[in-house]
């Protein structure tokens, strides 16, 4: 009985991850976080740094916001201040982490330090916090959801950066140069990701 419950939990976790990464991909299905998706995808190298930073921040943001929600907003009945609280707590957290990394590991800072301030109050990050509250997740599932969404973002960002490196060197007609062709590419990627719809019914 307990074993069954355990495997059930495990498969639930796996489904949450799969759903967040592929089926309900933040960028291509929910259209959140488009700004960094377009802004930091011109090189695979920087996309890797950005992906790591997003993984870091989104996991952290979803857990921190869950804590704030549970221990401050609900007890004090301040639900209407949700957005402000979340922004504050995420921004502070990210700033703090950035300084910590800068001091402790120059290599890691080189890789993701410069991207951290870029995404502190990005809609994807705030979105994951708000969606968590909406879905009434537990601490574990909200952390997992944050991580999974970030993983989905990272996957798509890396694929997109690879494509853009190729497109940037192609003789794209003048009218479509730059973000136009990037957006068309993102659109076609989004169409391809439609194939995952229905894969996980959550």
């Amino acid at each position, binding site marked *: 009985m307990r074993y069954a419950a355990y495997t059930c939990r495990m498969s639930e976790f796996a489904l949450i991850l799969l759903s967040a990464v592929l089926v309900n991909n933040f960028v291509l299905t929910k259209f959140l976080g488009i700004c960094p998706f377009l802004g930091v995808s011109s090189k695979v190298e920087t996309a890797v740094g950005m992906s790591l930073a997003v993984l870091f921040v989104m996991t952290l943001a979803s857990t921190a916001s869950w804590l704030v929600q549970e221990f*401050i907003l609900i007890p*004090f*009945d*301040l639900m209407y*201040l949700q957005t*402000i*609280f979340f922004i*504050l*707590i995420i921004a*502070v957290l990210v*700033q*703090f982490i950035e*300084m*910590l990394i*800068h*001091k402790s590991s120059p290599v890691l800072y080189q890789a993701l330090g410069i991207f951290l301030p870029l995404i502190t109050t990005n809609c994807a990050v705030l979105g994951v916090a708000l969606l968590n509250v909406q879905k009434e997740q537990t601490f574990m599932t909200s952390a997992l959801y944050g991580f999974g969404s970030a993983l989905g973002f990272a996957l798509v960002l890396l694929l997109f950066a690879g494509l853009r490196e190729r497109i940037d060197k192609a003789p794209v007609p003048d009218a479509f140069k730059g973000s136009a062709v990037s957006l068309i590419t993102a659109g076609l990627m989004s169409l391809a990701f439609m194939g995952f719809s229905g894969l996980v019914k959550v």
Partner: protein
Amino acid sequence: MNILMAILTLGGLALIASIVLAIASRVFHVEGDPMIERIDAVLPQTQCGQCGYPGCVPYATAVAGGEADVNQCVPGGERAMLAIADLMGVAPKEVEEDAGVPMLAFVREDECIGCTLCIKACPVDAIIGAPKQYHTVIEDHCTGCTLCVEPCPVDCIDMVEKTQVLEEWTWSAPGKRPALENANQNSDEVKHASGTA
């Protein structure tokens, strides 16, 4: 009452956060990275001053400080501009002046009066000669900066094209095919610079 509660909580949280950040910024303070040296490293070091700054290090300093544009280095051309833009993380800009073919300073020795003014002007000590004697440019050291041309009181310094030798010849890109039209196919004599690519 509710309003008060909200203000207190939010304010309290913000206060705590700001204190934490303030302390953290002191504790984790790090010196800025040496951008000037990195920019200087991609400059051609001609010290020519064509960027409007007296030498390469001053220009690098100006770029790092945000005073100068990334496209002011003439001898560095497009490549230096792209490298600087990449370092600074800004968009590349068009290079207005073309560096053209590499040039060398050449002193017409029979006209030289030995005033040493060009020697003083040369930023890389590429001109030798004592007062009242002919001066000569060391070809291997000359960067082609033209700074010596102006000070010469008798205008005996010319900028001449650097001659190309076979050992320095490299393939040009396909498409940008330089024709050898001028070269007569069956001529015996070959000047060093003829048929250059």
